[in-house]
């Protein structure tokens, strides 16, 4: 079992990813940074003892919850026109989406690896090879095309297909 990761380290490796997460949801840069601060405040408050991969999952779960909370609150506020503090009094659970990662995620690193491998193995063979070259070997599209003896546009097709498949699985 890897050591639990330091908050400082966690912030360094995940800040950019999380900012991008909020940016892609139409939040402007300044607000995205505030969101990310909130994510780490919540993470620290929960006192998790997680390895790097688990803590990354936890951070994204918190990020998603924070964003959904914000949406929901904005919607309620619009509908009934009340301030945040009042809202908290009458509906405290609105502020408390579950960040409880341990419940959803007690997989060990080994189990996690097995799960990722299983999902990769479910991809068509050529698609899997190209995706792994792209995702884990960090090769350029041209390098992959040369290595695998296919065209660059086939590389793009395979990667796009893998993303469509893997991100859909995750949603369900």
């Amino acid at each position, binding site marked *: 079992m*890897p050591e639990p990761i330091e908050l400082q380290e966690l912030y360094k*490796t995940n800040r*950019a*990813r999380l900012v*991008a*997460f909020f*940016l*892609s*949801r*139409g939040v402007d*840069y300044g607000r995205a940074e505030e969101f990310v601060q909130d994510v780490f405040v919540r993470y620290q408050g929960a006192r998790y003892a997680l*390895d*790097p*991969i688990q803590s*990354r*999952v936890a951070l*994204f779960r918190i990020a998603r919850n924070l964003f959904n909370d914000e949406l929901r609150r904005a919607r309620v506020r619009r509908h009934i026109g009340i301030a945040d503090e009042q809202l908290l009094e009458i509906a405290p659970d609105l502020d408390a989406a579950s960040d409880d990662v341990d419940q959803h995620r007690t997989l060990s*690193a080994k189990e*996690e*690896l097995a799960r*990722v*491998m299983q*999902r*990769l*193995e479910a991809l068509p063979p050529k698609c*899997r*090879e*190209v*995706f*792994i*070259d*792209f*995702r*884990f*070997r*960090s*090769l350029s*599209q041209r*390098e992959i095309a*040369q*290595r*695998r*003896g296919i065209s660059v*546009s086939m590389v*793009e*097709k395979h*990667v*796009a297909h*893998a*993303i*469509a498949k*893997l*991100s859909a*699985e*995750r*949603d369900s």
Partner: protein
Amino acid sequence: MTWSEVIQLRAAEFVRRLEADDFAEDDWAALTAWLEADQANRDAFEHAQLTWESTAVDEQELPAILALAPDPVEPASRQPVRELETTALMQRVKDWFAKPAFGMPRPALALLSAIVIACLALGTTMYSIIGPDPRQTVITQIGESKRITLADGSHLQINTATRLTVEVSAKARSVSLHEGEAFFDIARDPEREFQIKIDGRIVAVLGTRFNVKYWDGRLEVDVVEGLVEIRGADGADALRLRAGEGVRITENGILERRSSRSIGWLQGRLVFENASLSEISNDLDRYFVQDLSAKSLTDDKRYTGVIFIEDLDAVLNQLEAMTQGDVRYDEAEGLLVERHEDGAADS
């Protein structure tokens, strides 16, 4: 390839660089501009990020994943290795070792990678660059980009339509940039200054990373790391640039200091911030045989956005979108034309 695949791949490239912990200021500018441009871009980014996140594994588990996609062993690799392939391979080795972990401390990895790269380099590239004559001219065609490694371990990524001459000897290291653009990753050597000569000017460094562009009589230098000194022909007007600083020097010697400009071309994209139509078209023109440098474009409007260097059609599409249709390519005339205000609803 369909349009949605194109978008998905751009998103994936962004996510991949985020993962590599390799995101610089201009990457943020590019990503933000791109995300703001279209909901489809945001959706594609979300999918890519979800995919990366849900396939994250500990680095020591990486070999198990890689085993699912074994290296193809092709008879083609028996053929003599060409220079470009070797440098690509060296880059791959370097990238591979540049990543942290693998259970080894970084210095050990760095040493190991240096040894591997030295072995690869000795094989072909070093000889081909140095050869019997220490001077060698390298040319890239329009739309071509080349990576070369010099005998001292410095790397050059050479952009489109560039001509330069390399000279590395025991005493001196220099590159004469006749025209074009290159990104320099110069190996540190306190004994031998590295000089880039551009039309009487000298850009001098000891070891650092920076971009030099000389096009249309204008010289632009942008520093990513280290310290760069620019000297005039007589050595009098020396100018020093630090990391994050840049300068543009016009034909008439007018000097404009600014913060370091985007070097997005290394990732195949051009980032424009408050750029005029003529600046944009002039920059794009370097990448295509077709004439995109319409001289008659007006300069009163400014545009911000990112353009991915792909084929001409894709680039023109992006240009049209970025300028909200203010400019389009006239196929019959073979050049860029501006929208005339008469019929347009634009204010």
